[in-house]
Structures are given as C-alpha cells and as structure tokens.
C-alpha cells in the first residue's frame, strides 16, 4: 500500500435537504488499495455521502476528490473512473453472461476489441467459460455476485464502491466474496464498502462509523476496539451508534 | 362493515395524498375535453386552394367566386399549368388545387360533361379529405345550379362526379364528447383500479390484508367503490363541460345516460381487476391499460376513425370493446335523443360484457397470492 497516494480525499463535506442536514462536515481520506468500511445506522447519512462520492449528487459545501476528480464540478469524470455495485447486483437477469459484460463494457466506453478481450479474460478469471451463454437469472447467487463485482470493475477503475454487497447472502458465498475483495485490493484497487455485518467490518483496513450525519469514529478495527474497550466491532458499533437518544 | 369503510377511507387517502393522482383524476377530464375541443379540432379553416384553368371561362369564374366566399376555404393563386401545383403544395403555400380542363364551359354546354380534378396534399390525409370534400361541395353546388338552369335540356355533368358527404357545420364536438367520456371513464376505472391493486402487491400490503379475516370479495369491492365514486364525479363534470362549454345538447334522458354510464363503468372496473390479476408490477399494469385498453379504445371505438370504414376483421374485433357500445349509445341518447327501445341491443351487449368481466375477474382474483 503506497501510503501517500490517496484515491479519496474529502474535506468538510456537507449536504442539506431543506432544514435537514444529512451529511454534516465529514472529512476523511482513503489510500490506494485500501479496503475502507463505511458504516452507520440506517438513516445516518451513508447513502447520501456515497451518492456524492459517486458523482450522483452535488454537495451543499465542502471539497473533495475521488480518483483525482473534484466532487463539485467533475462528476462526469468521476462516474467514468469508479466502479459501483449495489445489493441488487445491477445485472440484467434476462441477458446472458457475455451480453452483460459486453453491455457494461460498452457503457463504460471500452472499444469493441477491449470488450472482446474483457469477455474472455473475465470469464476465465471467474472460471465461468462454460457459463458464457447462461442467462444471469439462472445463475446461483454466488456466481451472480462475483460476476457483478467483476463487471463493476470492467473498466479497471481505481476505486470500487460496494453498497451492502453481501446483504442476505449465505455465509459461504459471503466469505468467498470477501476473498475477491481482498484480491482486488491487493492489485491496488481501492475498495469502499458498506455493510450491516459487523464481522465484515473486521475485514476492512480502516472503518468509519457515521452517526447523525457525522463521522463519530475512524480508524483500523484494532484501533477502534482499543479506543472503545470492545472485544469486537459489533460492540464498538453498538457503543457508538446505540447511544440513547441518538436515533431520532 | 367497519372493515369495508376503513378500506374505502384508506383508498381515498391514497388518491388525495398523491398530488399526481389527484390531478389525473380531477383535471384530466377537463384537459381532455379542452384538448379535443379546441386543439385537436378536425375542422379546417381557411385552407388555401389554388386554381388552374382559364379564369375568363364563365363557369370557372363562378366556381372560383364560390371558393373565395366559402368560409372554410381561401382562394390562393390562379396558376397556368398543373406543373406549378406540386411545388406550391410541397412548400405548404396551398393545401389543394382545382384544375379545370381548357374550354370547360364549352365542353359542359356542348357535350354535357367536363373534367375537373382536385389535387390535394395526401401527406395530411385528414385535412386533404376535408378540403377535397369542401371543394367538391362547392363544385357540385355550382353543378346543381347549372342543372337547374338547363333543366329540361338534359342536364350537364362535371367530371369527376364527386360523391359528397358534407356536413356544413362539421361540428366535431358531437363526435368527440361521447368518445372522450368513454375514454376517461375507461382510464379512471381500469388504470387506477389495477394500478392501486398492483401497487399493494408490490408493497406487500396485499399479503397482509389477505391474511386478515376480511373476505377477499369485500376487499375487491372496497377497491372498486372509490373509483366508482370518482367516475361519477368525472361523468358529471364531462357532461357539464359538454353542455355548457361545447354546446353539445343532451336530447335524451339523463337517467338513461347515467344508467348506460354505470354499466360501462362496471365493465371497465372488471377490466381493471382483470389487469391487476395478470400483472405483478405497476409498469405492467400501466402498459396493459395504456396500450391494451386505451389505444384500442381510441382506434376501434369510432372515436377517431369511423368503424364503418375499417376492414371487416377489425370491425368484428371492435365489437368486443366495451367502449364502442358505450359511445354508440351515448351518441344516440345525447344527440339523437333516443329512448331505451332504440338502444336495447347495445345495452344488452354492454350489460353482458359487464357481468362477464366482473364475474370472471372476481373469480380469478385469488384468495391466495
């Protein structure tokens, strides 16, 4: 991990909807190749913040860059240089595997030649050569998830955003998926991930916990556990996000 | 009973809490009437007609004068040859041209027949047809006066002997008010009902309501009643607009008209219910209602094209569309002032449709998911 190369730099980010402040002066940095866990209770402002980082929403105030592009005025460039995968996997279930790869390759502006190469290299890496002509809807959940992850990175982005990628997935598939995340990170891809599974928070290099629009805690899992005198991340999370009166 | 009332109340909350729905329900009828009444009027005003021929010829001159004074037509240029006609029409400078053969008057008096042709812009067939019939009307009224003058002398014919279906007033609101009424009732009843049921399917609330002790039949009924009420409101507002704004008379009995509307609403509700049984997402329901019900209703019910001019196969197909029967009856009651005896056939057909659709869709509406 090259410590001084930052994929995400955020300073004093604020987003207001009318009187409601969804994101309240948050600042953080994410280094290249880091797995960054972005945690928070429902309604803490996670989704709003991620939308801004992905160039889907404009901040009310604050500065920042994602993959080297400004979140204020270079949203289009941001969208081109990041990968995104949500819980729903955003694959077209009525298209075949290779058609999905081709489609997303096309969406991210790859040339026909690059797409062709991508299809074969991706199928090989996923050992899905035989599943090339399979409809995505007929694939087992674990395969879909892996395919969705690979497709989110079809354009070799510097950073990939994963929004609850493992919600409702069985324990084995979930672990296999995290191994894919590790591999991606070891290749230098920055991984920005949200999850409700606290054991997954432990897998992250660093974790931030949002409460009421602010980042209440930020650090590596072991640092946070020490700081809050907790044995695991679940306890850390409960101590931070579960304070009485914090919810409303 | 309390359960049903709670249901109906909830349904009204849904309608009036969504501004878009409220707007559709209450404003759409007004907008449609105004749209059809003023913007999409099929009447033609001041269509420019060019003339090709010898203007000094007395018959030609009389016809040209008639075109000039006709309130729907406007005299364009007098051209020397037919070759100029096309360019003028293509540039949009005129909509039609009347071409008289040389020595028109002489041919008419000597041989008893003369040739005149009308060229019009087929790119806009509706307008073209309209203008052609106006022009032919002008020609034949001239022909009539020549015939009267030369009466006893064997008469004189001008070619082409255009057959004319000419409604001098061309009051299109007579046509569209019944059509719009059918369309609106259809939309409100089918689309809104089906979407509101399918929405509950999507949300999962239908699941919860179905596991309640309330019988499914009552659930259906309480879904239908609010839209029945809304269609009554719409029926009244369209009727008021028609009478006081569009000057369309209600010559027949209002009670009979209301009965016919009620039966039509019943069959539309049945259709809506049927759509909600088939579809599992709101989009499907919308598409089914929009493309599957509204489009055929517009096309086949005689609202835009007269049923008589359709191919036989389509005519038969149009018979299964409830709106067709409703529109025929409304026309008969409102404009002709017909009583129940003259619409008995249509009434029977529509009632049959309603009974079948409601029975079938309620049967299909499952107690389970």
């Amino acid at each position, binding site marked *: 991990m090259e410590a001084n190369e930052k994929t995400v730099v955020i300073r004093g980010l604020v987003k207001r909807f009318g009187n409601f402040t969804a994101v309240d002066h948050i600042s953080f940095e994410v280094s290249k190749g880091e797995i960054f866990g972005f945690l928070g209770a*429902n309604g803490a402002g996670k989704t709003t913040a991620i939308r801004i980082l992905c160039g889907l929403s404009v901040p009310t105030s604050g500065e920042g860059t994602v993959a080297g592009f400004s979140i204020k005025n270079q949203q289009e460039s941001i969208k081109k240089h990041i990968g995104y995968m949500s819980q729903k996997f955003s694959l077209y279930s009525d298209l075949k595997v290779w058609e999905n790869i081709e489609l997303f390759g096309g969406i991210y502006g790859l040339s026909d030649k690059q797409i062709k190469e991508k299809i074969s290299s991706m199928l090989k890496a996923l050992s899905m050569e035989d599943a090339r002509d399979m409809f995505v809807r007929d694939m087992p959940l674990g395969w879909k998830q892996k395919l969705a992850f690979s497709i989110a990175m079809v354009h070799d982005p510097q950073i990939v955003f994963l929004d609850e990628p493992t919600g409702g997935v*069985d*324990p084995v598939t979930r672990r296999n998926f995290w191994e894919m995340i590790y591999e991606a990170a070891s290749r230098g891809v920055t991984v920005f991930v949200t999850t409700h599974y606290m054991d997954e928070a*432990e897998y992250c290099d660093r974790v931030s916990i949002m409460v009421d629009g602010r980042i209440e805690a930020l650090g590596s899992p072991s640092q946070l556990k020490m700081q809050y005198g907790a044995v*695991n*991340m*679940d306890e850390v999370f409960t101590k931070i996000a579960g304070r009485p009166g914090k919810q409303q | 009973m309390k359960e049903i009332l709670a249901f109906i109340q909830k349904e009204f909350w849904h309608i009036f809490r969504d501004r878009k729905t409220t707007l559709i329900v209450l404003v759409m009828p007004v907008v449609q009437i105004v749209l059809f009444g003023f913007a999409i009027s099929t009447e033609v005003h001041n269509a420019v007609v060019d003339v090709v021929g010898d203007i000094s010829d007395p018959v030609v001159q009389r016809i040209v004068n008639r075109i000039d004074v006709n309130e729907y037509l406007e005299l364009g240029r007098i051209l020397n040859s037919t070759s100029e006609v096309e360019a003028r029409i293509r540039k949009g400078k005129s909509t039609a041209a009347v071409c008289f053969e040389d020595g028109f008057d002489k041919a008419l008096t000597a041989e008893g027949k003369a040739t005149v042709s009308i060229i019009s812009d087929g790119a806009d067939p509706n307008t073209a047809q309209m203008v052609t019939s106006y022009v032919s009307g002008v020609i034949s009224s001239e022909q009539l006066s020549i015939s009267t003058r030369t009466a006893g002398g064997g008469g004189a014919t001008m070619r082409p002997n255009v057959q004319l279906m000419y409604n001098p007033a061309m009051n299109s609101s007579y046509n569209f008010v019944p059509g719009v009424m059918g369309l609106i009732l259809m939309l409100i009843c089918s689309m809104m009902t089906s979407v509101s049921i399918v929405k509950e399917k999507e949300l999962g609330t239908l699941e919860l309501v179905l596991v309640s002790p309330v019988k499914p039949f009552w659930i259906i009924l309480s879904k239908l009643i609010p839209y029945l009420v809304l269609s009554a409101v719409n029926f009244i507002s369209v009727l008021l607009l028609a009478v006081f704004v569009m000057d369309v008379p209600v010559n027949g009995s209002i009670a009979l008209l209301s009965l016919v509307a009620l039966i039509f609403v019943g069959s539309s509700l049945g259709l809506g219910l049927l759509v909600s049984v088939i579809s599992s997402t709101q989009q499907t329901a919308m598409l089914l209602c929009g493309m599957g019900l509204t489009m055929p209703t517009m096309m086949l019910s005689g609202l835009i094209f007269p049923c008589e001019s359709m191919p036989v196969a389509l005519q038969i197909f149009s018979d299964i569309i409830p709106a067709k029967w409703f529109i025929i009856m409304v026309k008969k009651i409102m404009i002709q002032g017909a009583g129940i005896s003259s619409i008995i056939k249509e009434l029977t057909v529509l009632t049959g449709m309603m009974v079948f659709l409601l029975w079938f869709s309620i049967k299909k509406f499952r107690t389970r998911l």
Partner: protein
Amino acid sequence: MDDRIAIKVEGICKSYKATRALQDINLEIKSGELFGLIGPDGAGKTSLFRILTTLSLADSGKASVEGKDVVENYADIRRTIGYMPGHFALYQDLSVEENLKFYATVFGTSVEENYDTIKEIYSQIEMFKDRRARDLSGGMKQKLALCCALVHKPEVLFLDEPTTGVDAVSRREFWAMLARIKASGVTIFVSTPYMDEAGLCDRIALILNGKIIGQGSPEEIRSRYPYKIYAARGENMFNILKTLRPLDGVVQCSSFGCECHVSVSEDGPGEGELLSVLDAAGINGCTIEPIEAGIEDCFIGLS
C-alpha cells in the same frame, strides 16, 4: 412453554417452474416457543411462510397452525395469526397512526381495545404518530410493522425477515422486544439471514436451497459440530487463510471477523502444528486457541 404443538409441517414441497423452492420440509414448533428459521436469501424462507400463513398452496405435504389445516381451515388460521411480511408491509402514504388503525379495523378490532398488547412497542413510536410511514427510519418502520402484526392479539406470530437491512443496534432492540412478546405467551416463528441471531431463539432450523440442513436448539446444533475448531488471529487474515486452507486435515477454514476459524478432523493438525506452519510461511505474531463452534460454523459445515 407447554408441549402443545403450535405449528406442524409435514413433508411440504413447493416448486416454481423449474426451481424447487422447498423440498420435504418437516418442522414442529411448540406452543410459546421462539423458533428461528435461519438461512440466506432464496433458501425458501418466504415460500414456507406464505404456505403457513395460507397465502400460497404447497405442491405436496401437510401443515397446520394451532391444529388447523392451512388448506381446509385457512379462514380460521387467518383469524389467529399475526404476520409481518418481509420489507414491512406498510402504506407509505399513510401516517403511523393511520396504518395501525387500518390494520386494527381490518382484523376486526380497534387500537384502544388491544392497546395493552402493543403499548410497550407503540409507545416508542407514538410521538411520531402523525408522520407518514415513508418518512420513518428503518428501525421505526420495523416497530410499526410489528405493532400492526400484533394489534389483534394473535396466538402465533409469523415474522418474515424482520431484521433484514436494519442496523445492528435496531436489530438488538428488536430481539429484546421479541423476548418480551414471547413472555406473554405468543408463539413466534421468525426467519432471518443473520446467523448471529440464532442464539436468541429457543430452537432453530437451518435452511439452504429449499432443504432443512439442521434443526434443534442452538446448543444442540453447536454440540453436533463434528470437528475441532481453532481461532487464529493475526495481522493479515487473507494470508492466514491461504496458508492454512490447503493443509491436510483442515476441513474448513474461513474468516470470522478479526479471526480465522480453522476446523480440523480428529487426526488433523493441533494448535502447535498450525502455528509452526504459519511461522514457516513467514506469518509471525499469530495466536491460535481452541474455541467452541458457533452457529455460523455449523451452517458452513452443513452447507
């Protein structure tokens, strides 16, 4: 808890076209029990719930709730159960109070009549009673949905994934509420994809791909785990996994939060051996200790 059977499922099968959603499901849930159906998305949890709540029909097999058959006596069952479908079936454009009143009326009762049943939960959201359901946070929606399912004092409560997509803190609060509802004598059948919630149930069934792969009390299931299990801790989890997984005698090796659980067969390597393998691979400073198997270990082992 008495020994009456509240829910009985015998040989239930259900298919949707080519997918076999449920294959020969057999369960017995005692009256007053908190029973958990634990498995991932698509395992068949919702299919089973729909059959038991009389919303869909099984292809074969029999099931009864409170002694009433789900097919023949479906109307009776609908009067005695409370059901909370996945994704909180609430009317988004109705307020908290309106939702609750509506469901109370539909189930033939009123909020006032049964206020005691829901008081404890409802009092937590009552201050937002005029707020539209769509504007509630996940935790509050969950509470409201639970109130709606409880408002007619059901004897059996079916909760289909009540904690999915809800944060860890709200989840914990929710389970505390369930324990109190259970204490009032209601039988609760709850499904969840979260393995860590298994320990909060009296008995559980693990479901995967339409089959029950294990059932019993959480302790029973854990004690049935056939292998010795060690927790390895160290700086780089991924390397530990890759190093230990291929070893002979290592049956299973998966990450669990900040540690790595290594299951070994009877004749497999012990603590010392594992440590020396890690040392040899250049992974230093690791600790390895024997632990008890958790439900998630069992699930992985059984799947």
